């Protein structure tokens, strides 16, 4: 087995709100192997973005460990973290319209991370490196002086990727990098991310709500619901042998662009419940069509039902052989 680049152990991130403590990420444990892509899926509000930002230390974790290259970066003082690991863990942001400073042009935007992290580098070197990065992500030379507002979403996202890559990171958190893009542009960006991974041996955490995208790009998939990880398995497995009822519902809800496939749809009742001070029960129980009394009484633990396939459901056994 390849070595783990990142190990997350019992990571929690709670936000205090006037109505109580919001459990955005609750007890997530996860290993990410070097050179692999872990996809994190879930609906809005399930804590997937918070998970990514907590790994970046953009949010301070409430408790738990994040072990990166054998060192716990969660408990490390933020200054030390920034010095040692900031460049190694990078992020690509969701909204390419909002995540670029509108008052900087393309070259300045790509130069910024290089300048900040290589103090003492000469200006010419910085520019040369920035130009190299632009070429790498496929930004034409003539765009150097352009400002973000003049560019389309795909190109802006390329700037975001260039910014993250210019620090030679090993691990990149991709927070919905293609959700704001049109399908034809989406394919360009996904291919670019895959190429870069192959060339540079990058490790991705790919956060998205789009099941087909996550299936395409990931090796392992994590399904999150209200801050918890409820299922984790290899990418092919989830589409063939989904176990958790929520994952099943999520899959069946996707409209398929084919007129002949008319699949049985499992329409969930209701919407996400509040992640504020959740009761100790299965958080999905209220919407689950198979919920029993037990589900409302105790919280299911993650169990390994098959090799590399772990699920948090009391009735997981019943769903295994269903398909």
């Amino acid at each position: 087995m390849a070595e783990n680049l990142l190990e997350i152990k019992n990571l929690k991130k709670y936000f205090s709100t006037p109505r109580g403590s919001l459990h955005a990420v609750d007890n997530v444990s996860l290993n990410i192997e070097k050179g692999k892509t872990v996809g994190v899926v879930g609906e809005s509000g399930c804590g997937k973005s918070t998970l990514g930002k907590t790994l970046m230390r953009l949010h301070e974790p409430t408790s738990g460990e994040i072990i990166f290259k054998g060192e716990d970066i969660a408990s490390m003082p933020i200054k030390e973290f920034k010095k040692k690991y900031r460049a190694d863990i990078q992020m690509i942001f969701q909204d390419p319209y909002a995540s670029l400073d509108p008052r900087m042009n393309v070259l300045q935007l790509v130069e910024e991370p290089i300048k900040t992290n290589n103090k003492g580098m000469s200006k010419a070197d910085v520019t040369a490196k920035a130009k190299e990065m632009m070429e790498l992500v496929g930004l034409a030379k003539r765009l150097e002086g352009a400002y973000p507002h003049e560019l389309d979403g795909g190109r802006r996202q390329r700037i975001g990727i260039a910014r993250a890559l210019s620090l030679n990171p090993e691990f990149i958190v991709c927070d919905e990098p293609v959700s704001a893009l049109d399908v034809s542009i989406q394919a360009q960006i996904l291919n670019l991310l895959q190429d870069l991974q192959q060339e540079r041996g990058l490790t991705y955490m790919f956060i998205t709500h789009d099941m087909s995208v996550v299936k395409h790009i990931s090796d392992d998939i994590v399904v999150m619901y209200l801050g918890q990880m409820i299922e984790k398995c290899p990418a092919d497995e989830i589409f063939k042998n989904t176990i958790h009822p929520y994952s099943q519902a999520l899959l069946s809800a996707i409209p398929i662009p084919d007129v002949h496939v008319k699949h049985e749809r499992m329409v969930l009742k209701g919407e996400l419940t509040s992640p504020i001070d959740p009761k100790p029960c299965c958080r999905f129980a209220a919407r689950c069509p198979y919920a029993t009394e037990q589900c409302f009484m105790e919280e299911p633990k993650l169990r390994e039902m098959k090799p590399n396939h772990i699920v948090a459901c009391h009735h997981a056994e019943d769903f295994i052989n269903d398909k």
Partner: protein
Amino acid sequence: MDENILDIEDLVVHYETEDEVVEAVNNIRLTMKKGEILGLVGETGAGKTTTALAIMGLLPEKVGAVKQGKIKFEGENLLEKSKKEMRAVRGKKISMIFQDPMTALNPVKTVGDQIAEVVLLHNKCSKVEALKRAQEMLALVGIVPERYKDYPHQFSGGMKQRIVIAIALACEPDLLIADEPTTALDVTIQAQILDMMRALQKKNNTSTILITHDLGVVAEMCDHCAVMYAGEIVEYGTLEEIFDNPKHPYTKALYKSIPSLDKDVERLHVIPGMVCDPSDLPSHCSFYDRCDEKCDAGKLHDPEAYAVKDGHVVKCFRCQQREGEEE
């Protein structure tokens, strides 16, 4: 034909500002039969929403203007109607559902009042009757009617979209235009809303234009489908034709660029380049620069719409040529 509820003929819409002319919709032709669901697919800036706004008579004043064409609704040209007449048509005969349910509702009015308002505006009835109608509508979209006294912020995103739909359907319009009604929602909620819309459509037989960028949604909901690119309808046909037998290179490429759930593909097909700037459209085929099957004719001229089959129209020289060879 009298059955056509909507007939759009050679519609051209431009947005004009001081520095540029944005050619948002160029010469589109579209007919819709009563009771049908038409899917309008395309990427950002393809002119989908502009077409919808033109039908509604809601193009931004001063900037947006219909340059040419007719929009015949139930035989009458909507473009010749006065503002006052259009106001009577909107809401009563044609309704629109906007993309973002969060901003489409008035936050300081109860949802019951907001539905009743539309009813009162277009029907002669008392306030009590209107409120009763509002409760019926809420029940219809799957919300407990007793909640008519609640304010929008007390509802979740999916519920708000249901309310927006309730408002749109309150006067039993003949034509419903839904502009990306589920884009802002999560998939499980989207499934709920689509289920409900389909059920309501069957029940009332409302003709619907569904604007979306998601081919999956189209496959599930629509009878006919029009693919838009750079302000033109590049392909139009029945759902089966468009999905099983796509002719236009753009439509074909679009299918290949979506990651599929049931098939494993190493790399996605990429449509090179990007959508051409609508303020700077080429005089030749607008898809030429990105086309897989480039042809010399496309480099020089803009192709005319060409009927490959009865009811399957493609705007591409290749198809014309191929058809010619076969015959």
